[in-house]
């Protein structure tokens, strides 16, 4: 437990040969799925089935099957959307921002986090489409020349959202694939199976590990990281505009963009830690995804959690300071009104509990850490719920006040989105290398020329 933080720790614990890294990381791909994997997959597929049934019902009978009412026209759908987009942000942050900041420790977790970004954005993308009530008309959201001579309203935050989320998905996918190309090349050269070889050859595009290619490749990777960084900030900013650009008290606030971005990173890191705790154990990657990684991520959770706590406090302060009676009412109502239970779950999970990460022992003890990060995920889901529902359920006219109770289909869709996410995560661990092999080799000990530059 005596860790010297004064000097950089090796990214990989204990010296492993490069060939050993290959073997370790591609082992899940070489072996047939074991019983544990199949049990896990059957659980997630069951959850996914619940979601499919809920959404089929929704398509058959319309949004009336949800608990939505007047005035609460947005509830679980938008809550889940914002929650999942937020989960995705950690991946881009790890892969792009930490890359630009030359944080070498990111290599062990970047691939996995990027994959989680893609899966989380997939889950997120479902909700705006199904909440429109007629998802088969979703194509109207794209500006295409049509017989009505109409264009989409480019000044609307909802259209910005379409552009932001689809760009984010595309760029994340491209970034992820670019990182995967050298690994596909390696897998192609490793595998004995002819079918696998064909598949890997197609995806590797004929990668040859040529240094003339690496030269451009590294440049492209840096450019992509440079783009992904402002992109990740813009996406949750635009998601927050969905609320902030309206005039509903509790939504109409300039603190929303930074507050949402901090919250997104907070929840995303919590999700990455949750999943990595299992992955490093199950796939024997403790040397590559080390306790130091988890320690560092927990520190980021502590920082962003405190930022989110600051935002909660600042919202209250501004409500008082603005002198606007509607703002004041909505915030007092949030903390002490009918949804006080949700508000206090949110505050305790997001602000109070992560403070335990001030203690080094807590940051480096896996069971405690797991409980905390799961609670953070719960708290961040409730944050979006509180923002969406409590601002709506007290309309300007007391005659149109209401209370939202989720229906079984609301819950089923939420469960289904978790099913989809974890199904994709499980399939990913069995089909693609969960750690970027070429990147981890580059930071292994002895992988770079010594400082005297060879024997001359």
């Amino acid at each position, binding site marked *: 437990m005596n860790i010297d933080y004064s000097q950089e720790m090796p990214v990989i614990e204990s010296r492993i040969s*490069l060939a050993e890294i290959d073997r370790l990381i591609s082992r899940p791909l070489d072996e047939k799925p074991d019983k544990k994997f199949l049990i896990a997959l059957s659980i997630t597929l069951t959850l996914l089935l619940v979601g499919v049934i809920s959404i089929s019902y929704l398509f058959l009978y319309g949004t009336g099957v949800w608990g939505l009412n007047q005035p609460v026209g947005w509830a679980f759908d938008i809550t889940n959307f914002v929650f999942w987009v937020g989960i995705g942000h950690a991946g881009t942050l790890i892969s792009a921002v930490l890359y630009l900041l030359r944080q070498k420790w990111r290599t062990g977790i970047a691939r996995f986090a990027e994959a989680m970004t893609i899966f989380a954005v997939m889950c997120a993308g479902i909700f705006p489409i199904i909440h429109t009530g007629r998802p088969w008309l979703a194509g109207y959201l794209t500006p295409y020349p049509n017989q009505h001579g109409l264009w989409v309203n480019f000044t609307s935050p909802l259209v910005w959202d379409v552009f932001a989320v689809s760009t984010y998905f*595309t760029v994340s996918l491209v970034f992820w694939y670019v990182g995967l190309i*050298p690994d596909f090349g390696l897998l192609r050269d*490793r595998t004995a199976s002819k079918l696998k070889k064909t598949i890997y050859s*197609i995806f590797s*595009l004929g990668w040859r590990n040529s240094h*003339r290619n690496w030269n451009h490749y590294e*440049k492209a990777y840096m450019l992509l990281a440079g783009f992904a960084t*402002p992109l990740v900030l813009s996406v949750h900013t635009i998601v927050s505009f969905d609320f902030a650009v309206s005039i509903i008290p509790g939504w109409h606030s300039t603190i929303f963009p930074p507050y949402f971005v901090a919250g997104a990173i907070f929840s995303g890191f919590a999700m990455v830690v949750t999943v990595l705790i299992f992955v490093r154990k199950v796939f024997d990657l403790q040397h590559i995804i080390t306790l130091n990684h988890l320690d560092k991520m927990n520190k980021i959770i502590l920082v962003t959690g405190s930022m989110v706590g600051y935002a909660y406090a600042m919202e209250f302060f501004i409500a008082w300071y603005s002198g606007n009676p509607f703002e004041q009412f909505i915030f007092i109502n949030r903390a002490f009104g009918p949804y006080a239970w949700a508000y206090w779950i949110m505050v305790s999970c997001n602000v109070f509990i992560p403070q335990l990460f001030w203690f080094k022992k807590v940051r480096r003890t896996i069971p405690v850490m797991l409980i905390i990060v799961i609670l953070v995920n719960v708290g961040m889901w409730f944050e979006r719920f509180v923002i969406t529902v409590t601002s709506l359920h007290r309309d300007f006219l007391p005659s149109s006040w209401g209370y939202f109770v989720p229906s079984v289909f609301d819950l089923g869709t939420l469960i289904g989105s978790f099913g989809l996410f974890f199904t994709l995560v499980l399939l990913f661990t069995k089909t693609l290398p969960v750690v970027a092999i070429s990147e981890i080799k580059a930071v292994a000990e002895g992988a770079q020329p010594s400082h005297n530059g060879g*024997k001359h």
Partner: protein
Amino acid sequence: MSERKLYGLTALFQTPDEIVHAAKKVQDSGYKKYDVHTPYPVHGMDAAMKLKPSNLGYVTLIFGLSGAAFALLFMYWAMSKDYPMIIGGKPFFALPAFIPITFEITVLLATLATVIGMLTFYFKFPNNSQPLHDTPYMKAVSSDKYGICIEADDELFDLEKVKHLFKELNGQNVSDIYFPVTEPFKIFEPKFLILLAVVGMLTSGATYVTLNKLLYITPFTWLMDQDKVAAQSRSVFYADGFGMRKPVDGTVARGFIPYEYKGLAAPVVPLSNPLLPTAQILQLGRKRFLTFCSPCHGNFGDGDSRLRGQFPNPPSLHSEKVRGWQDGNIYHVIVNGQNVMPSYSSQLSRDDRWAVIHYIRALQKAKNASPSEILEAKKETPSNAAK
């Protein structure tokens, strides 16, 4: 093996230090067509191979700027030229509100251009038939060895010299790589023709089904099938059995205020023209007059139209009688009709009628002005001088 063409000579090295050293030596020996293969980018290799920094950034820059310009111009055109609409009190060109999409399109286009450009133009991918593929050399360098390959079509290439160089550098597993023997491709191969036919049939079948069947499936028809009363259908609810209901007595349709002196010889109370004879109103009156009145009354109201002789002659509008009429009398005739002239109330709205009356008055003034009035009009006034 004489017909196989030599691609190049390869050697493997154990450590990054060795490969950087070897690359430097090969570069210094003057070889141009050689490449270093490493499982990950090795630092210092760019300098050893004397590679210029990648110019991929320019591709990104050009496409990023094009994306920004395209997005901004497109939104400007769509929102202020093609379908201008005021939304939320913003101007047509609402720059702040265009920023998010401009940014997203910039990033999207720059990213895609960088990656696609790098893969296709810089790397010439996909290329799975390169001679180095499937060699033990490639298997070694993608795992944990560092290799160098000097290509046979380099000007300085000489098998013995290169072998010697590799030996000097302590390179291991020196091996020669040959181009794979390619089978000549024949277009009339039955397998290929069958494949072509199958692909053709599948494509046309899928296109047919998509365009003629799938696109016409209505996913959910409940909105169309819901209970409703069509205008001509029989109603079981109303006693008279009509689905279509008559408006309540005394209902006045929008824009159709009834004329209260209809059928009388003249309006009981004198009516005055509610419109001012502005240039715009006179223009409207002229347009309506030429459309509806001139076929009988003639272009200038002289009653000399092309229909003269086929009907009872239409009267001139410049007669003492008409010039002496009040505006209300002309209005009455337009709405009510007179002799053979039918009512024009369905063709001309209220404003149209009063505009036509202004125009008739202008025609009358023009045709029957007194000399003093003409002098007055010809005077050098600021408004006349401008013409």
